[in-house]
Structures are given as C-alpha cells and as structure tokens.
C-alpha cells in the first residue's frame, strides 16, 4: 500500500514535470494570434457588413484575430474616434480604419504614430505618408462611369440632373467631379440641376416632384449615393414616370437591386467592399510584417444593369450574403 503511494507520487511528479515541459509548446501559439482592428463607419448596412466579411476571410487566411469596431450610426465621428482609441487600447497589431471624416483620420494617424502601430485607411483617399495604404474605390472614376452609362442610356441627348445627399463628403465630391469633367464632351447633354437633396425619405419624394415640375423634359438622374437613388426611384414608381426617366445609381443595397430588376433604376455603379475589407486586412498583415505594400489600392468598380445583374459572376458581388 505504502509502496503503491510512493510509486504513484513518483509517476505524478514525472507526469507533472513532463507536462510543465510540454505545456508552453501546445497552448502558447494558439492564443498568441496577433490582432487586426477594423474600424468602420457603421455597424449596420450591407456595405459595411460586406467589408467585414472580406476582412474575416483575410483574417482566417493570414491567421489573425479580427476585432470589428463600428458605431451604431453613420456620421458618429465622436464615437468612431473613441473606438479607434479602444482598438489601440485592446493591443491591436495594426489598425484598419474607414474614417467618418477628416478629423477622425487625423487623430487616428496621430494616435497610431505615437505607438508606432501601422495604420491603413479604407474608403478614403489621402496623402499622409504615415498611412501605409489607402484602399478604396476610385470615386472620380465612378462618377465618370455613371455619366458614361447615362450618356448611353439617353442616347447622348437630353437634360439630366445630378443629385446627392451629402456634398461635403469627399467621396461624393469626387464622383460629382467625375461627372462634371466629362460633361463638356457631350454637347447635346444639358445638366439642368446639380443639387443637394434632403436625406429624409418623405422630403426626397416632394423634392423630386418639384424637380420634375421644373424640368418636365428631364431624361435622366444621376444619383451620387444609394439613398438618393432609392428616394428618387420610389417617387418615379409611384408617379409612373419609371419608363421616361433613366436613373443611374451608386452602390447596391437590396432596394436598388429591386428597382433595377423592376426597371425603375437603369443602372448602378457598384464598389467592391468585400475586396476592400479583404485587401485592408491582407495589406495590414503584410505591413506589420514589414513588407512593402502599395500606398494606393483601387478596388475597382462595376457597372450593373438589368442585363447583367444575374450573371453568375455578379450575383456574388450584389448578393454577398447567403441568408
């Protein structure tokens, strides 16, 4: 009996030693995955969810943890800045941020520079050398594509309107510029309205009716953002003007796609948020490994219309989520 207990103790000691020896080998590496923080503008909406989806793919591929931070509402710059600080406090290896405004970006750059954390910026173009990479859509090109599509749709002739909700945004400005720069080429196309529309849905309806009263000959509307496009399309559907006026939209929320199939919206220029999220994390990982990454990455755009919206290669772009 005594002998047995002695043996037991010896075996126990040996096993303990053995495991204390091997323990750091087994569980050390699993938990030590480095973390990439992704801070976007809003928690909800297909656009940002798709960005997140792409980021998750890259995180899995490059074996990183992905921490996702997003304010509940868009334009909540104050909250977003808090989240950037939170992400740094959480010990992220790199920060990938889609800043709500210039100020958030400036502060984020300052914060990360203090701690020598690499920072990458999504969906915004800038020139600060502290940013490893600006990854996003060439909005100027989007504007050009929208205009070209419109020219094709109205057969190079007629009045068009350029509408957008928030012109203070750099992205919207660039899209507008893309349209305006191509406008002189088409002598038979007249831009009769270039206006800022209210963001409220009901107001958009009234506003659109007003627009058509003023310009009954209006052939096309280029919307600089999806909410404007949806508002205008809704009004056109209810007023039965769907066939007469072509709408070219931006982005692909479900409503835009619905109107696209219905024929109310003629085309939409889509971005590639999945690529944005994926490349954001991919280059974040490479930057943190000290590799050189391109300072400016254009994730590309695509013109979608009723013709090609259900092509198999576009289905995944337009409907990224299997529900």
């Amino acid at each position, binding site marked *: 009996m005594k002998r047995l207990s002695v043996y037991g103790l010896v075996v126990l000691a040996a096993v303990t030693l053995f495991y204390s*020896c*091997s323990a750091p080998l087994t569980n050390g590496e699993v938990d030590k995955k480095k973390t990439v923080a992704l801070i976007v503008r809003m928690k909800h909406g297909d656009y940002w969810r798709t960005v997140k989806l*792409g980021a998750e793919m890259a995180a899995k591929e490059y074996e990183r943890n992905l921490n996702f931070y997003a304010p509940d509402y868009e334009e909540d710059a104050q909250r977003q800045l808090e989240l950037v600080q939170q992400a740094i406090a959480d010990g992220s290896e790199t920060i990938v941020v889609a800043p709500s405004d210039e100020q958030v970006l400036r502060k984020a750059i300052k914060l990360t520079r203090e701690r020598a954390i690499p920072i990458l910026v999504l969906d915004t173009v800038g020139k600060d050398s502290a940013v490893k990479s600006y990854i996003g859509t060439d909005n100027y090109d989007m504007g050009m594509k929208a205009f070209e599509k419109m020219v094709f749709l109205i057969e190079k002739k007629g009045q068009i309107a350029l509408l957008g909700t928030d012109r203070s945004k750099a992205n919207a400005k660039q899209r507008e510029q893309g349209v305006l720069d191509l406008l002189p080429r088409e002598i038979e196309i007249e831009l009769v309205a270039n206006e800022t529309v209210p963001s409220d849905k009901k107001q958009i309806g009234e506003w659109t009716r007003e627009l058509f009263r003023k310009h009954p000959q209006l052939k096309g509307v280029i919307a600089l953002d999806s909410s404007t496009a949806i508002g205008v399309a809704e009004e056109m559907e209810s007023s039965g003007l769907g066939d007469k006026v072509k709408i070219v939209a931006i982005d692909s929320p479900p409503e835009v796609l619905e109107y696209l199939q219905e024929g109310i919206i003629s085309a939409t220029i889509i971005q590639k948020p999945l*690529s944005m999220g*994926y490349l954001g994390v991919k280059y974040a990982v490479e930057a943190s490994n000290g590799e050189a990454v391109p300072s400016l990455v254009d994730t590309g755009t695509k013109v979608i219309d009723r013709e090609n919206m259900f092509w198999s290669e576009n289905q995944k772009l337009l409907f990224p989520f299997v529900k």
Partner: protein
Amino acid sequence: MKRLLAVIKVKGIQFIITTSFTLVTVLVMLFVGVMLYGKFAQTAEQNAYLHTQQILEQVKYNLDSYLNGMTQIFELVDDKIRRSKGLTAYKLSEQLETIVETRKDIVSIAVFTRDGTLLATTPSKVLRKNTRLTEQSWFQKAIEDPTNLNFSLPHIQNLFKGEYTWVVSMSREILLHGPDGEIPAVLLVDVNFKEIDDLCQRVGLGKKGYAYIIDLVGNIVYHPQQQLIYAGLKNENRSLPLKHSYGSYVEETPDETRLITIKTIDQLGWKIIGVSYMDEIVTTKKEISRFIFWLLIFVIVIVLLVLHYLSAKISRPIKLLEQSMEKVEQGDFSESEPIRGSHEVEQLSLRFHLMVAKVRELMHQIIREQEAKRKSELEVLQAQINPHFLYNTLNSVVRMVGNGKNEDVITTITSLSKLFRISLSRGKNIITVREELEHVRHYLIIQKMRYKQKFEYEIVVEDEDEVLNCLTLKLLLQPIVENAIYHGIEHLADPGRIRIFAALIDGKVLLQVSDDGLGMSPDVLAQVKAGFYKSEEGSGVGIQNVQERIRLTFGEQYGLEIESEQEEGTVVSVWIPRQVAEGRDRL
C-alpha cells in the same frame, strides 16, 4: 579553481564515467528522438491525411443525405401534383403549403408552362418583372432533359417579390392533367442554399484549410472565397479535381504546399474538394520536434545530475583512498578512518588499511629490534667501563699497597666494592637516583684516591625526598665525571672542583655535573655535541653513549646539554623524566 581542475581531471574516473555515460545517453536519446520523431511525424502526416479524408467523407455523407431528402420532397410534390385533379385544387395547394411550412429551407414551389408562364406557386407570391426565367438554367435543363431531376448551381432567385435568396433549384418536366389531356409543364422547387453553405462553412481542415464544391464542368457551387475568386484576388486551380473523382494529391505552389482531397457526390456529380495546408502538418512536425528536443534536453540534464551524483559516489571514496595512500607515501603511517563507499572500494580500503597496519607493525618491530640491538651494543660498551676502571683502580691499589698506605687501600677497596654492587644492581638497567648518586660518589672517592687529592667534589640534592626516589639509567654520571676528570681537571695546575647537582625542574629530573677545569673550545664543543669527538683516554664510553641510552630509554625530549667555556669549565646537564620508583625498587 584548483578544486575545479581537480574535478575535471581528464583521466579522472568521474570524468570518464560522466562523459562516457553522457555520450551513450545522448546517442541513445538522439536515436530514440529521431526514431520517435520519424514515427510521430509520419503518424501526424497520416493522421492529417486520414482526418481530411474522414471530414470530407462526413461532408459528403451529410450533403448526400440532405440532397436525398430534397429529392424525396421533390418527388413527393411531383406525386401530389400528379394525383390531384388539377393545379388549382384546394386540397393540393393545402398539401403543398404544408410541405413548405414543414421544411423551412424550401423557398418556393412553382409550376410553369413550357413557355414560362406561371401556373401555380406555393407560397403564393407576386411574380417579379424581368425574371427571364426561360433563360435560366433550371428551366432550360428541364425542357432539354425531361426525365431527370435537375439540380442547378446556387443562384439568386429572382422570380418572386420579397427578399432575394440564394437557392438551389430542382426542376423537372411533369405532366399535368388538363381538360384536353396531358400538358407538359416544368416543376420548380427552390431550396435555400443556406443549409449547404453552412454545412460547408463548418468544415475545418486545420486552421486555414477549407472545403469547396464544384459541379461537373468546374463551376463553383460553393467556395468560402468565391467572391475573392470572382474579384480576381484569389485563384483556385480546379483543373485537376475536374479530372478525378476520388483521391488526394499534393499541390505545390511557390508560396505553399497544399493537400487536395477529392470526393464526389454521385447523385449530382458535384465534387467536394478539401484543401488542407501542409505547413500546418509541418507545424505539427515542428511541435513534435521541439517537444522531443526539450524532452532530450530535460532527460540529458536529469541524466547529468544523476551521473554527477553517481560518479561522485563512485570516485570520491577512490579519491579518499588515493589521499590516504599519499599520506602513507609521505611517511604518515597513522591510523585513518575506514572509507565508506561501494563494496569494492570498501574492501580495497580495508585491505589497504590492513596492509598499512602490517607495515606499521613491522616498522615498529624493526625500530624495536634496532633499539634493542643498539641498547645491547651500548650495554656491551657500558659493561666495558668497569673492567677498565677496575684495572686502573687495582693498579692504584697495588701502588698504595707498595707505598704502605693501608688506609687509602681500605677506602678504595670499600668504595670499589660498593660501586660494583650498585653497578651490578641485580642485572637491572634502571636504578634510583639515590643509587646512581651513591655510585658516582664511590667513583669520585676512588678517583680522588688515585689522583692524590687533585680535586674536590660535592654532591648537592634539592627536593631530596622526591629526586632521590626517581628512577634513572645506571652509569649515566660516571662517564661524564670521568670526562670532567680526564679532560677538565687532570691537566690543571691547581686542584679543581667537581659539583654533582640533582633537582626537580619543570617536572623533569636534572642531574648536573659541573667542573671548573679547562673547558672546551667551541670547535671541540660542537664536535662533542655532534658525537664525533673521540677521546683517546678513559673507558671509551663517551658522552654519546649516555645521550643515546637516555634517548632510547626515555625518548627524544630527554638527554644531555653541554655548556663549556675555555678556562672556565664545563657544565653537563642530564635531563631524565620524573619517574618515581615503586617501593621494591628502593634500596
């Protein structure tokens, strides 16, 4: 430093044991480690293969059973429609609704004519504009291949208002009972793709591995990175899986090595392809090798510690033995502790000690024998004293008789007889100081007679009771006195003085003979002290004899001290131990 060097004696037994055992251990451990690593690595690799195979088999099984279930539902719907009197029959739509309600993943059931007109749908929803359904693959296949049930690739269902959903469409031509006979129509059952998507997403092959599905011609049914492939950010080489239905192979690209495993769902010809990353298997290998490496280190450290202890245990007694031998070599034969250690060493040390004891004993014996021999030699010399003296004395007596000095003759003869009685002393070498002094007194009396009052003498004793009863060697003082007479006084012009003094000093007995004779020059004194000086006269038993006898009998710390000044005289001190005579030794 020295100790350290002593420890690392290259040829030391400890060093030899430690290094050889360590070498053996390391070699054995290395061998075992390499073998284990090989085995483990192989097993890990095999397990990875097997694991991948099993997972894919599971996926295949799940998909199979799911699709079978769907097929059954399709057949059920087909059956219900065939048996009913017409599509509008209330009972039919109720039954179909029940089916849709029980199976959450059925998005819609619809029947179209061959030109794409909607005849019936469950649940009833509004048909969208611009569906182009006749151009869609499920419709075309149903027309082209009326007998088989078709499964489409996952696509967005754009037929009915509501949410756009990813579906797999099952379609086949059916025959409807119309009023004017059988009408061919197309039955469509749309199944939500989410179930399959989830199933495939859950497949985990290691950390990064995944599974994807392609159809017969290589179109992607499911791929976790499908969007990236379409966006051109990723590429999946689908040419090989297209050719094979089963098996696995290793695909090597500059960046990575991947294990590709293929399974086929027979029903549809869809292929499930598992992609696992070899570097994860290699990671497992790395982990194993690291583990074995640390194990090796750990074992070697333990072995070294144990070996150090063991070799010390073995070599320490040997070192001790060596040290005790060294002591003996340097002439220290004293007894030392027996060494504890292994049986052999203990035996060795025991034997050695026995040997040393034997040697010690022999040495003592030799010393004893030598001493005895010397003593007997000395005694022989000493025995010559008296015959010589006797001859001289008797010559003197004859002269006295010739001169008619009877008084002197009587005194001389009396003293002579007493002297002899003492010097015989029943054959003993050791007598009391009293007897020795008595003896020397008679000697002095006789000499005084012979030398016609050429000197005076006195015998002074301090602590009489003590000193007189102490033991001494006999005939110590006679040769000294003889020297004092022959060398010190004989050649003096004036009569000399001889003083015999006995006392206890510092626990030793001092017997002193002083004269005021010629004394000795320092050279002679040195010679006498060294024992080289031989006088031509006297009995030939010199001071050296006395010295040696004292030393042999009482030890090195006793003996003679001679002080002498020319023209001043000589003092010879005899130091002997204070040994009080037993009663019977007293006279």
